């Protein structure tokens, strides 16, 4: 039951039309309708929320205002603060970030026989990968193919993705699932071993593989276990705050900072992989976020300062179904799998206003339109929201389905007295994913030699919108890919000479010349949530 009595009354309207709504097959929008909807209601189109960069390789491009402040922010150090000639750590491949991409890269680097280490500002596994609920795509069923997956991903991303990256994503997908399964990752299977797969928004075949609604957690905890089994060093509670270059302008390590003692350390490496994840904690446009505490765009800053280019940094994914109520879990992810299993989006009148499995950008924009221009949202103490009619799942698939397939969702709402088997839940878009990022080639190389990027920090794989299940896939495929290529490059690279942090002063001068030098300490590392008195 909802604590606000009015919500219980409104939920009855949804219940009355449930059987009728469950039987409905809503029409999908035409390409023109989608374009119009996005242009008017998607947050990416709100011009006054963006700032044009005045310095760096993307000078002239627009990025979210909060990101611009960090990209053009102030380094946490000057070159004089550290002695680069006495490294505290010396390795072949330095991996910055301990999420799905970083861990996958580490395992492949270890497999390749090079010396590798992970640095992470929190703990290994404290990452968006851990929170991915719904699943991972791979075209491995007989009625599906990598080519069909290619078309879904490329079209879903508005034809903006780099084709060679999409190719790698889809053709390496089945192998990625196999690799995970061989490491011991559990997947939902039929008794004969057939994968249980469902649709995601914008998929044309049912290729979403899952491990209940703990898909990312199951993958991440297994990768973490494997990293530890292999004895790969993990330097936790230690953030990278600047990339170090060598005398030839190639990446050669990073300056690290102990998050608790603030001690500065130097890591020298032949190649560096940035795998720092996303930026939800920058709360673009004031949105709540489904992201991890550490999702503060650090990797974009590290790369940008040494000259790595950004691609599509102006496109963000607002997940259509963040929690809209209650306040304790406001903005938390309600997995798309809820809709994959049949739950539909319903307005205050109890009407289904769209097909529930349009792509995420279209669905988010449609929910925003329903709550604003059409004024059909449900008012709570936290703003407007839309019903997601979860009991419909058991009406379609039978009792027990929710507990078996989406136990995390049942638990999350159950703690606040809402039984999602019997009551619909309230949702509203939440900041979920950074579609763009550091521009990479299909061997994960950035424009800076010996600097690689993988996972959410990289851009170009998903174009301007990512499909559900292509992110878990991306972190595995491109995490491994970065590990393989960075190791190979490390093998042919001799010990870096002439280490320098000269880029800091150079970038500062560029900022000053452009008149945008600010005091924002950057990278941000953690959001500031403590109440200021």
């Amino acid at each position, binding site marked *: 039951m909802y604590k606000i009595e009015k919500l219980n009354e409104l939920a009855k309207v949804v219940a009355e039309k449930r059987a009728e709504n469950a039987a409905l097959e809503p029409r999908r929008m035409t*390409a023109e309708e989608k374009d119009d909807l996005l242009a008017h209601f998607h947050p990416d189109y709100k011009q006054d929320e963006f700032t044009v960069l005045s310095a760096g390789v993307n000078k002239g491009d627009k990025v979210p205002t909060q990101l611009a402040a960090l990209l053009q922010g102030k380094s946490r150090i000057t070159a004089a603060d550290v002695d680069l000639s006495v490294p505290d750590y010396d390795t072949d491949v330095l991996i910055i970030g301990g999420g799905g991409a970083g861990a996958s890269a580490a395992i492949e680097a270890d497999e390749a026989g090079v010396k590798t280490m992970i640095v992470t500002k929190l*703990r290994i*596994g*404290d990452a968006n990968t*851990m*929170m991915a609920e719904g699943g991972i795509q*791979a*075209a*491995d*069923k007989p009625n599906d*193919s990598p*080519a*069909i997956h290619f*078309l879904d991903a*490329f*079209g879903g991303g508005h*034809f903006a993705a780099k*084709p060679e990256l999409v190719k790698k994503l*889809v*053709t390496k997908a*089945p192998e990625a699932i196999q690799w995970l*399964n*061989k*490491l*011991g990752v*559990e*997947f939902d*299977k039929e008794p*004969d*071993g*057939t*994968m249980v797969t469902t*649709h995601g928004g914008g998929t*044309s075949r049912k290729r979403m593989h899952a491990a*209940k609604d*703990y898909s*990312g*957690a*199951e993958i991440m905890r*297994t990768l973490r*276990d*494997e990293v530890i*089994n292999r*004895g790969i060093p993990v330097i936790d*509670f230690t953030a990278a705050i600047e990339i170090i270059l060598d005398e030839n302008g190639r990446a050669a390590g990073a300056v690290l900072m102990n998050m*608790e003692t603030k001690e500065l350390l130097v890591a020298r490496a032949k190649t560096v992989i940035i795998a720092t994840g996303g930026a939800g904690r920058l709360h673009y446009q004031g949105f709540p976020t489904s992201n*991890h*505490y550490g999702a503060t765009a650090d990797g974009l800053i590290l790369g940008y300062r040494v000259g790595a280019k950004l691609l599509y940094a102006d496109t963000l994914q607002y997940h259509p179904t963040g929690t809209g109520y209650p306040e*304790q879990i406001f903005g*938390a*992810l309600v997995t798309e799998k809820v809709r994959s299993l049949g739950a539909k989006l319903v307005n205050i009148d109890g009407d289904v206003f769209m097909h529930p499995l349009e792509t995420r950008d279209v669905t988010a924009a449609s929910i925003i339109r329903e709550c604003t221009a059409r004024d059909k949202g449900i008012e709570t103490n936290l703003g407007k929201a839309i019903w997601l009619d979860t009991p419909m799942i058991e009406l379609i698939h039978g009792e027990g389905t929710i507990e078996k397939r989406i136990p*995390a969702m049942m*638990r*999350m709402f159950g*703690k606040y007295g809402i039984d999602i088997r019997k009551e619909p839940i309230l949702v509203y878009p939440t900041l979920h994913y950074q579609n763009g990022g550091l521009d990479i080639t299909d061997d994960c190389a950035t424009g800076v030699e010996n600097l690689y990027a993988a996972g959410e920090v990289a851009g170009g794989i998903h174009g301007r919108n990512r499909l559900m299940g292509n992110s878990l896939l991306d972190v595995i495929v491109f995490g491994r890919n970065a590990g393989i290529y960075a190791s190979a490059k490390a093998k042919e690279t001799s010990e870096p000479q002439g280490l320098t942090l000269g880029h800091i002063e150079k970038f500062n001068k560029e900022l000053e010349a452009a008149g945008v030098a600010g005091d924002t300490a950057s990278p941000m590392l*953690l959001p*500031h*949530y*403590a*109440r200021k008195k």
Partner: protein
Amino acid sequence: MDNMLNVYLFGKRYQVPAGLTIMTAMEYAGYELVRGCGCRNGFCGACATIYRIKGEIELHGCLACQTEIQEGMYVATLPFFPLEKRVYNIEEIKPTQQIMMQLYPEIYSCIGCNACTKACTQELNVMQYIAYAQRGEYDKCAEESFDCVMCGVCSSRCPAGISHPQVAMLARRLNGKYIAPECAHLADRVNEINEGIFDEKIAELMTKAVDNLDEIKDMYNHREIEK
């Protein structure tokens, strides 16, 4: 201010608004969290916490990000707990009962007190999954422990010193790799890709993606969608 509650963070009293979680109450009190804060959504286990309501006997385990504060709550977060993880090569071990005896022999010292289950932040039947592990029933152990976030509160309460989350982790990997049925269509597809049977189709799409966007848009907008 109405609706302010007394909570005791590490014994010190703070007055915070009702409706906050333990984590947001700490932030309201002025803490800048580094430890004991992770995904903030109940999946990572970073914010393991123990609390007791003033005047009551029972001690509770919870995740700070998923638990609403109550009047008189005494809170101690457990930002790190020394779980004992044993290392192994997943390719070399086998899903026999012996492997658990070798790697985690302490599970056989379980005295059946059930403190682990009572402490579980995910309301799992921890003692039951340890029993399955003792018997080498790794499929059952995997299923029973599946929602574990490895926060370690169970282990903090165990008189036998068992590292329950690590035991379950081993069981799940054994189950996923060796016991759960193999997927034939997955192996077939990997072989097909390696044989190059999709290369031509993909190459065609790649060319269109660069040279003929209108055609690929049309293909996308009119593609068949599986019901």
